[in-house]
């Protein structure tokens, strides 16, 4: 156990990257997801095609490939860099990949939420003379958001767990799972307690999220 506690710094370091990846990617993917959803329900057919095409392509690609593409493709081959320091550069590349990937699932959740808004709401808004954008912004999206809090919570939990894939070669963000693997590779730490420790770390992150979103979705549910 001392060997594990002796590494407590790298454990905390790893989880701090995990949290940073999760929070920033969550913000970006939410924004992108809302934009994609708006495009998918818009009156302009071409926008619908683009957004649907993007979602279908990216969500059917394995996340490992998406992040590998960010690392080896965008960074190494095309020379896209975000920061001078390596750690922050790979961090932003990983955020880019995770956001691009997660936005698809945010969009899917929101779109199913849009479908739960009763037709009468939309019709009433239209008959008041609201334009499509006003309708979406004032009537549909607020209701859709409230009814998709539960699914969005699942997406966030999935994102938290998916940040481990950012340890893929060519990217190598020093997040928790990578720290754990490095400890195993050194061969000194006790394997089972270390694994249990890291697993508890992830459960500490995801379990409260699940309860919080469950509580919020009950509390904010649209009464119909």
């Amino acid at each position, binding site marked *: 156990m001392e060997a594990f506690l002796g590494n407590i710094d790298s454990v905390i370091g790893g989880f701090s990257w995990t949290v940073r990846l999760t929070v920033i990617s969550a913000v970006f993917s939410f924004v992108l997801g809302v934009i994609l959803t708006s495009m998918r329900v818009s009156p302009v057919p071409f926008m619908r095609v683009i957004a649907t095409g993007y979602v279908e392509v990216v969500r059917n690609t394995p996340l490992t*490939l998406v992040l590998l593409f960010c690392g080896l493709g965008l960074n190494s081959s095309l020379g896209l860099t975000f920061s001078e320091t390596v750690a922050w550069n790979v961090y932003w590349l990983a955020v880019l990949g995770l956001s691009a990937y997660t936005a698809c699932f945010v969009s899917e959740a929101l779109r199913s939420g849009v479908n739960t808004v009763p037709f009468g709401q939309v019709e009433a808004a239209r008959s008041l003379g609201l334009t499509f954008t006003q309708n979406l912004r004032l009537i549909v999206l607020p209701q859709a958001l409230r009814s998709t809090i539960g699914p969005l919570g699942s997406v966030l939990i999935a994102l938290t767990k998916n940040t481990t894939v950012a340890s893929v070669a060519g990217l190598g963000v020093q997040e928790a799972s990578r720290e754990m693997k490095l400890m195993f590779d050194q061969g000194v730490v006790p394997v089972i307690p270390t694994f249990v420790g890291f697993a508890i770390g992830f459960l500490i992150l995801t379990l409260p999220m699940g309860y919080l979103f469950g509580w919020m979705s009950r509390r904010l549910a649209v009464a119909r």
Partner: protein
Amino acid sequence: MKLAQQNETSRLFDAPGPKAKARQGVYTVVTLIVFAAALLWVYLQLDEQGQWDAAKWEPFLRPETWTAYVVPGMLNTLSAALQAAVLAIVFGLVFGIGRLSEHWWIRVPCGAVVEFFRGIPLLMMIFFLLALPLAINQLTGLPASSFRVEPLMAVVVGLTLYNGSVLAEVFRAGINAVPKGQSEAAYSLGMNKRKVMSLILVPQAVTSMMPAIVAQLVVLLKDSALGYIVSFPELLRNFSLIGTRFNSVIPAAIVCAIIYIVINISLSRVAIWLERRNARRGRASAHIGEAAMTEEAVAGVTASGNIGTVELHEPDRRERPDGPDRSDPDRPA
């Protein structure tokens, strides 16, 4: 305006009149220009780096690239996914039924196992499985070299534990969704618990849950790409080898993505087809909630969906006058 033609996308706006049509035409053109400009920019960026050189794409026209890299990789991916799929279904059935047991000493451990494997990242599980020889060495003092965990085994076991846990929840929801009259009738015919479960409940649950099961198998197939990280020579790994060997990372990534997308979309179509067929036959396709279905399965997030959101789509409520709440913890299993 024809209400019958109202689909989800046209709910938010009226059928356009002449003015709106003109406006939408303008928007279409603007979008088209922006999109074309973005594509052109990407094309030029790639061109500047010489990514469209024939030399970078030429390897994909050679048959030996396909026989030496793509086909073996695909076979590895498919065999790992197939093994994991079979094992995950067995695991899911055992633990899904276990969670419905009336004995707490079966119910509680099964629940704990399912929740644990759903709650931790799959990649961490795979790393742990690869470190198992070391763990055995530390516990028993036996030399670590006397055990070996092959990457294939770690990937298959990891995929089994994670997806099996998700499937356990799917099966549990499916069994709970079978109308209560079915098991009551079976008991009144004198069947015992085992027979009610195996002859009445499980077959109906599997039928109604088939779309969700197939969709979860798509997730499993997609997650098998994690094998790349632990050097399991599956499709993605072999494509990265092509990428490094011929110095064509971007073309390799594009071709690889196309293969994954084609496989996954065709499998998703099977799930949608199964769901439509169920609906046509008047059977309820029980979902783990619209939400969990979208996230977990069809969309393929490796999410741990809320257990609380189990809801049922039942076209025929007459069979079930007592509503959708069948989460009776003491129901016989």
